[in-house]
């Protein structure tokens, strides 16, 4: 915890107005940053003195009705210090674009493809942004809250 107090001071000093808020939630530090700074922040955290070298998870939340609508969540973990950190940033519905972090962590490649498949977030600089779970020809993004609950898009013709 002491270390985590330090890390949010370091980030505040380094990124100043790009950091929107810092709080502690369930024992982890949650840092809310601007959308255009998220890649820099993660790159900074990954480097040596901070050493958050592992990307545990990368996902998205749809807060429909709120503005901005989507929120990206990055969980990073420091193997040497045994600390976790959560980075969040807001993504608007009209312009669902964000910088890809697949250059930093290899596992971000498929995680970003999953988020693109389910929420339709466009990752700038992703090497191969295709659907991961759903098939080609699937329309819409099924984990968005406005995807119809009973909408089915069968791949082959059904019997009845």
């Amino acid at each position, binding site marked *: 915890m002491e270390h985590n107090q330090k890390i949010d001071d370091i980030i505040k000093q380094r990124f100043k107005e790009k950091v929107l808020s810092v709080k502690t939630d369930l024992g982890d530090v949650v840092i809310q940053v601007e959308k255009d700074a998220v890649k820099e922040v993660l790159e900074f955290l990954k480097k040596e003195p901070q050493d958050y070298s592992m990307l545990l998870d990368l996902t998205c939340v749809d807060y429909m009705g709120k503005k901005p609508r989507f929120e990206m969540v990055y969980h990073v973990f420091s193997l040497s210090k045994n600390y976790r950190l959560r980075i969040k940033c807001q993504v608007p519905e009209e312009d669902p674009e964000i910088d890809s972090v697949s250059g930093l962590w290899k596992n971000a490649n498929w995680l970003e493809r999953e988020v693109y498949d389910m929420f339709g977030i466009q990752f700038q600089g992703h090497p191969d942004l295709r659907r991961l*779970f759903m098939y080609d020809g699937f329309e819409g993004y*099924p984990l968005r809250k406005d995807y119809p609950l009973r*909408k089915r898009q*069968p*791949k082959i013709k059904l*019997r009845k």
Partner: protein
Amino acid sequence: MGKIRPIKKYSYYQKTSHGGFIATKLNYVIGWGRKYSIFHYPFITACCGMEYMSAACAHWDFDRFGVGMTTFSPRQSDLLFVVGTITHKEAPVLKTVFDQMVEPKWVIACGACAVSGGIYDNYAVVQGIDRIIPVDVYIPGCPPRPETILNALLKLQDKIQHQKQDLRWNIIKK
């Protein structure tokens, strides 16, 4: 009291001086042969597969009913055992496997997901495999007990015994 005459039972089996013969019907005897020589193809996608495995292995052992021959080639199997959730992405694969099987063939839908989609009433899952291929026996349960699977196999044997047999060679002769 007089001597009690034994009641003569009606029997298909008769003994003659030349040896035994059996009077039966062609449809019946082909059904009898088919029901005890089912080769099944397990199409296992989810957790019901564990129950299928325990039903197939020594504890419950459905081989004692003549349905234990597992083949991993659809062309050499009679029974398609669909065990688990089928998604829309997987539906073409299941259809292909079914189409590759040679007549006569039967299908068992094992578990709630294969029967009706189960708890997965969502964008990804086929709501019952009978939307893709015809099904002979449905096994309910999430997952079904091995006894339920055995019961379903006996039901299927009963069905095979009593259905009108598919005799392809008659058609070929004409």
